[in-house]
């Protein structure tokens, strides 16, 4: 959670998150370089000294300004590909959970050792206690153990939704008729919020996600309680 003036990426709680933030910073640096170069060129051309632009050409210049941007593109593309394969590469998940998007709430199912199925609705603003976050609090949070490889299988019941957790640098589309798999791993315990990121109807802005990472003991107690309820 951050103040309203915060414009950077959120702090990451996963290894992949750190890599994503680094790549983002590097891409922005390249973009700033290109933008500065172009603006300087505009400033130079504005001086109206270049009268015979239409009558001169230079094959060498055209070759240079086609050739050198290739290196910039490669420098952005190679880390991007590396990161993509890192994220998509499979690792064995110790636990598996299923996330199903509905109009307009999320439901979580688990079946590894205790069957549970719970729905997570947003708490309306009128029912908030002082200090709670507007449009982010839910009645049933998803409780997961930290420092554990967890596999999430995300799908939807009706229309396309998107399950997002900015603090874990996660965004997975919930597509009806399709199971999207994503691995989740948090370094430390904590409470993380997200919101649906694919337009899905009237209450698209009012179906938040709240995940709490806790230690194993608390997680097992919670799962057992949920399965009995």
């Amino acid at each position: 959670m951050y103040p309203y003036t915060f414009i950077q990426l959120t702090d990451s709680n996963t290894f992949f998150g750190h890599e994503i933030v680094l790549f983002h910073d590097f891409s922005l640096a390249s973009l700033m370089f290109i933008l500065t170069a172009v603006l300087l060129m505009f400033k130079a051309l504005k001086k109206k000294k270049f009268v015979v632009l239409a009558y001169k050409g230079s094959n060498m210049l055209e070759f240079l300004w086609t050739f050198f941007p290739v290196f910039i593109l490669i420098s952005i593309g190679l880390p991007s590909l590396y990161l993509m394969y890192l994220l998509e590469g499979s690792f064995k998940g110790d636990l598996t959970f299923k996330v199903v998007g509905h109009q307009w709430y999320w439901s979580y199912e688990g079946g590894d050792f205790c069957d549970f199925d719970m729905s997570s609705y947003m708490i309306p603003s009128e029912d908030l206690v002082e200090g709670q976050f507007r449009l982010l609090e839910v009645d049933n949070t998803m409780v997961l153990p930290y420092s554990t490889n967890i596999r999430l299988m995300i799908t939807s019941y009706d229309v396309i939704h998107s399950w997002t957790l900015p603090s874990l640098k996660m965004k997975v589309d919930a597509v009806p008729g399709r199971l999207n798999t994503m691995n989740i791993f948090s370094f430390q315990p904590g409470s993380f919020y997200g919101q649906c990121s694919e337009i899905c109807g009237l209450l698209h802005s009012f179906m938040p996600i709240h995940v709490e990472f806790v230690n194993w003991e608390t997680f097992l107690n919670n799962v057992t309680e949920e399965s009995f309820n």
Partner: protein
Amino acid sequence: MLRVALHRVVSHRSVHLTKVRPSMVVGFGGPVQLAENRDPNVNPIFHESLTNPIPDKPRTLKYTGDLATLKEMEVGDWKKLSVEEQMDLYNSYFGTSIADMCRDQDGWKSVLGAGMIFISFGLLLHLFIHLYINPPYVWTTLDEDWVKASIKRQIQSHAGDITGYSSKWDYANNRWK
């Protein structure tokens, strides 16, 4: 050879005869003609600019009278032409001079002024609504007490422990760093 010749011609055009038409309006390649007053001798698609300083076709399509005489004299030695005759020949080919093209224009001041007038009307309307039409106060999550409570909650949950609020809280001494 052509490149050198062109450069020389253009530099001549920019150095000499810079005050041919000091009151010429820099527009779309020369003075704009209205449809009913169109002179058939003037090229209607004549266009000149800094990036196209020497158009293919001249501004004047048909040379008649004195201009025809001058055109014949143009074939010979230019030193025999007087300055006024050279200016007439120049004006018959081009619409405006390079100096006029490079001169700063002040049309932007009118545009900026008009824009500011419209913006000020909008701001006046906003002020009126703010003073006379605003609804009574309703609590929001942006109230000072609520924001303080939410910050306290973030610190208690260690949210933003690298760049957020928790990174600025001294947990050992229970105060801001």
